Structures are given as C-alpha cells and as structure tokens.
C-alpha cells in the first residue's frame, strides 16, 4: 500500500534520512522503532507531507505523494497522530473531530449562509459520526471540554480519534503511548488491533517493545537515518545489530 524508495532527507549538511526503503502492505500493522534521533519523526513527516524528501519516491496506492501537500495526501486516505500532542487547543474535543472530517464534508460557505438544506443534513451527519468516534474511544463525557483542558490520556485518545475521523486507509501513529501507564497502553493496543480489524493499515512508531510485540505484524528498525533491520517482532529482538544499536545508545 505504501512504498518508500531510497528516501533521503538532508537538513543543511546533515542527513536525517539516508536512502530508506520501506514497504507497508495493506491491512497490516507495521512497527517502526529506533533509538532517539534515528529519524523516525522525520520519516513520518515525509510520508504525511509535512516535510518533503530531498530525494527518493514515496507512493501510496501506486500514486507518488512525495511532492504533494499534506492536505492532498490526507485526501488519498492517510491520517496521523503526533509524538508531542498537537490538538487544536482552543477547540472542544467535538470540534477537533469535526475539523478532521473536513474531507468528508462538501458544504461551502454559500451553503452555510443560505441555510441550504444539504448543509444541515451534512452538519447533522458529521456530528453523529463524530459522536460515534468519541464513544468508541471513551471520550463522550468530555466532548465539550476544550482540548487544552483534557487529561493527558484523553488528549492522546482524542488524537487517535481525530486521525480516525478522516476515514483513513493508512494511519500513522507517532508514539501513541508515550507517557501512558500500563493500563492505558493496553487500551491503545486494543484500539490498534481494532483498527486492523476494520481494514486500516497502521504504521506505529513506538518505544514500548511489549506493545510492538503485541500488535505488530512486522517491524522496521531505523538507526542514523538508515534501515537497520526488518522482520517480525521476535526476529528483530534477536537481531545482534539492533541490540548493539540500542545498547550502544544506552551505555
């Protein structure tokens, strides 16, 4: 579904990504791990269109996307969450979801001004859909709370809900469990599995190896902007190069 070929990204003279090749098959949950500063977030940014690779190609469903703007990539069915939560803080939880359904709606300002019947139907439909999503993630209680006033866990969940609201085929999760306790992490794991059941492809960046082992079909390991290893979670865990990369980092 998503293919990266020799993707590189240079910042000034510094290569954050160096000829990365990746294939993410449809319907699978793929993990992406690596030590801090390995270039994971840069990679996600390149895929989601917030950044563009210096060279190389990225295709989504055989369409090249590495030069497209973020909103056009989203239109092709991709959504993402952020490592450091980036919700719309001045909006309520519900409004955050409504914004994310932008691509699903069609009403223009003119519709809204003239109180076009279709506009009302669409608003109602969007609200219903948003409520369902909030329900699924256990956020219905806080739908009218400003995003900035939500608890940390709720904010993380709202980010996932917002990503799902765009009705994606591919979802990129950037450390969805960062800062969560074991129970919350477990819940996130369940949600990822639920996504897979609904046929959504997931690329998840994680540090929590337990979660990776629980949900991922395969794992890419990134180090210094290069793919170090690929395989199922158990395979990767035993890969000596991976162990060295992590241990080397730790000592």
């Amino acid at each position, binding site marked *: 579904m998503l293919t990266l070929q020799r993707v590189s990204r240079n910042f000034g003279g510094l290569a954050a990504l160096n000829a990365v090749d990746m294939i993410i098959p449809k319907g699978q949950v793929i993990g992406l791990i690596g030590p801090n500063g390995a270039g994971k977030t840069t990679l996600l940014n390149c895929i989601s*269109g917030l950044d563009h690779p210096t060279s190389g190609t990225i295709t989504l469903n055989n369409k090249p996307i590495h030069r497209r703007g973020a909103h056009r990539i989203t239109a092709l069915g991709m959504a993402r969450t952020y490592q450091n939560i980036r919700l719309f803080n001045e909006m309520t939880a519900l409004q955050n979801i409504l914004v994310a359904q932008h691509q699903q*709606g069609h009403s223009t300002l003119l519709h809204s001004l003239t109180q076009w019947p279709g506009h009302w139907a669409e608003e109602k439909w969007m609200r219903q859909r948003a409520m369902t999503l909030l329900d699924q993630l256990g956020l219905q209680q806080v739908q009218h709370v400003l995003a900035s006033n939500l608890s940390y866990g709720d904010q993380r969940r709202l980010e996932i809900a917002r990503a799902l609201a765009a009705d994606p085929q591919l979802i990129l999760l950037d450390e969805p469990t960062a800062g969560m306790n074991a129970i919350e992490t477990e819940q996130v794991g369940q949600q990822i599995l639920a996504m897979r059941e609904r046929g959504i492809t997931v690329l998840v960046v994680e540090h929590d190896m337990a979660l990776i082992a629980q949900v991922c079909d395969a794992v890419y390991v990134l180090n210094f902007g290069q793919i170090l290893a690929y395989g199922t979670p158990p395979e990767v865990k035993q890969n000596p190069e991976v162990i060295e990369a992590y241990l080397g980092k730790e000592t």
Partner: protein
Amino acid sequence: MWGLLDSLLQPILDLATQLLEPLLERLATVGLSEPVVQFMLMNAILGVSIYLTLNCGMFSLANAGFMAIGAYVGAILTTQHGATLGEALLYGMLVAGIIAIPVGLPVLRLRNIYLAIATIGFGEIVRLIILHFDTLAVEFRDSKIFGPIARPILKLMVEDVDARRLEITLGARGITRIPVYTETAHLVVFLLVLSYFLYRLHHSRMGRAMAAIRQDERVAASQGINVVYYKNVAFVMGAMLAGAAGVFNALATRTIEPKAYGFDKAVDILAYAVLGGLGNWLGPILGGLTLTAIPELLRELREYSGVVTGVILLLIIVYLPGGLTSLMIPSFWRNGGRYEFAKRVTTAGVVLVGLVNVLPYQIDNGRILGYEFWGLIIGNMVIVGLLLWVRYTRQRQNGGHFSLPLMGVGITGVVLFIALALVGKIDHLAVGYYVHLIGMALVGLGGWISYPAEER
C-alpha cells in the same frame, strides 16, 4: 435586477433609519454625533476585515491598502460615472478582491512578522501608486508595450484618454466633490449582515477549517485542509471588506487623499481587532466601535486626549489579554477557580472606573478628576494603585474573601456616587456615571468573593 434589489432593500433601510433615530439622538448627547457614529461603524467593518485574516493565522497589515483601493474606486465611479452607493460598493469590493488574489498568492507563504512587514510594504506601494497614478498613467499610455493594455483601462476612468495631463486620482490633492451617499442605516444594515455572515462562518465547515489553520497550520494541513486555499479565501474576503469600508469612507467624507490610508491607518485597523479581542467575531466590531469613540468621548480633555487614548490601549492590552470581548466570555471568568475569578472581577471593575475617571461628568459644575492636568495624574495614579493592589493580592492558603479592603473601597465608591446623585451634586447623569457605578460595584463584588482553602 438592480432595481429589484433596491426596492427590496429600501424598506429595510427606511426601517433601520427610523429605529436608529432615537439611539443617535441619545448618542449625540454624550458627544457621539452622527458622523462619529458612522466612522465608528466603518472602523468596525475594518476591524472585521483584519479579523478574517488574523482568524486564519495570517498577520496581514494590507487592509489599509485595500481600503484605499475601495475608496478610490468608489470615488471615481461616483464622480465620473454617476454610480450609486450600491454600484460603488459592488465594484469597490470586487476590485479590492481581484487585486488581493495575485498579491495573496505569493505573500501568504510568509508567516508572522514577515507577512506583516510584506503587507506593510504592499500598503505603502498602493499609497505611492495612487499618489502618482496620474503621472504613471501617462507613462503607461505613451509606452509602446503597455499602451494597448493601459488605454482601455484608462478609458474607464477618464473621458479623454489622450489629454496631455490625466486627472484621475489627482495626486496629493485627492478627489473632491464626492457625493455623500453613506447613511448610518446603510452601515448598520451592512454590519448586521456581516455579523450574520460571521456567525454562520463560525459554525460552518469553512470556519472550523480557518480556526484550525490559525491554531496549527501544519496539523490542519494533515487533517486534509487546503491551507493555501483557505488562507487566500480569507485574505480576499478581508480585502473585499476593507474595500467596502473604503467606499463607505469615501462617500461619507466628500474628499479622499492617499495619506489617509497609509501606515497609520493600517496600524489603527490592527488595533481595532486586537483591542476588541480575537476570541470571536464580536471582538473586532466592539474594538472598532470603542477605539473610534474614545477620542471623541475624551474631546473635553483636549490636548491630553491623545495620551489618555494611548494609556487606555496599553491598559487593555496588558490587563485584558483577550481584548474587550474576553469580558463577555463565561470561560474567561470561570477558568482558574474562584480566586482567579475574583481577581478578574476586581480588575475589570478597576479598568471600568479607569476608563471613566477621565470622562466628563460633573459635580458642582466643576469636573472631578480629569480635565485639569493634576486631576488627571492623580486619578490615573489612583487607578494604577488599585490595579497594583489587585495584582499583588496574594492567594491565602486558608481561603477566605479575596480582599475585604477592596470590597470596602468598592462599596464606598458606590454609596458615595449614589449619594452624590441623590443630593443633586451630579447634575448630568452621563454614561460615564453609570459605568463608574458598575465598575465600583464590580470592585466591591470581586473583593467580597470568597475562595476555598487550598487542597493539599
């Protein structure tokens, strides 16, 4: 078509005129004569025009330039072609909007201060071009390359294109003899329609997209929002509104000159929006109205009015982060618990009293506080003292009332003023009197509010 629209609008305008009459009379008694009210309303429109761009995260200062374009289009149409207000408005907005498109496309890639400065540059270029339009028009007309393009355009503006000297914008002298078509009712109806438009925008897909862009442009993009498109739409809409305000302005002042729409105006427009508050669409309207009214209300202060206007601007920016409208939003008061609530109530009260301490209301036919230099200084020192008092009142661990002494000050103020009015010492119960009373009451109320002990 035009006639139909006219016949539909006319009854509404007549009705508005009738309804406005008593209000205008009342306003005139406090020093806001009808022309002043008109300028207040125009500036409210300008406030909205910049709000549209700010609301989309764009710090654009181009609105004075678009206002100039609107004003000149309106003036040329009415003086040269006998256009009506409606036609002038339509074309003024259109031309401003059309010019905004090629300007916006490249410029809106810039952010923050860079965008602000680029748009200031745009405004200055517009001003300079208008100033030298007649000379430039002759240059273009006579040039081999641009002549064929320039001629038909110029033909729209003057009868005799081949004259030795073209007189279109008339340089620094400006266009005079512009008919006065703008009526207060027009502005009120325009602003009401605009308010409805903004209200709808707020609750629509497009409005949400714009708000999202303001809060986080990149995340908004990855929610599938076409950032460039919406930014340009907002920019063009802002330009059209500024153009409309320009048309109204030109058709109210009988004469226009380029320097009226320069950098100073751009800064004023920004101040309207920020002062009123960018939290919602009411802010810029309120800001435009207030900031235009303040110097007129302070007319009695004569040469001190400029300083006081500046002080008020500064006070609001420093002590009311969300602008005037933040006072109207419940969450402003609720956030931060009862202690913060009490603090805000008292601050608001002091600011209100501060606003009127310089307004003319009379005791014994002499002015208390204000007018005289030292009265002004002492009055403002009292206000600043009160503000510091409110600011540095500490939250006590055991809870209790916010500040009983402040409550005392507030109650004394209220009692004193009611008593003075009862014994007839205040013979002219102006708006300032009531505002002062409310302000003092708020100070008292805020001081009295109690808050619980801190949780451990």
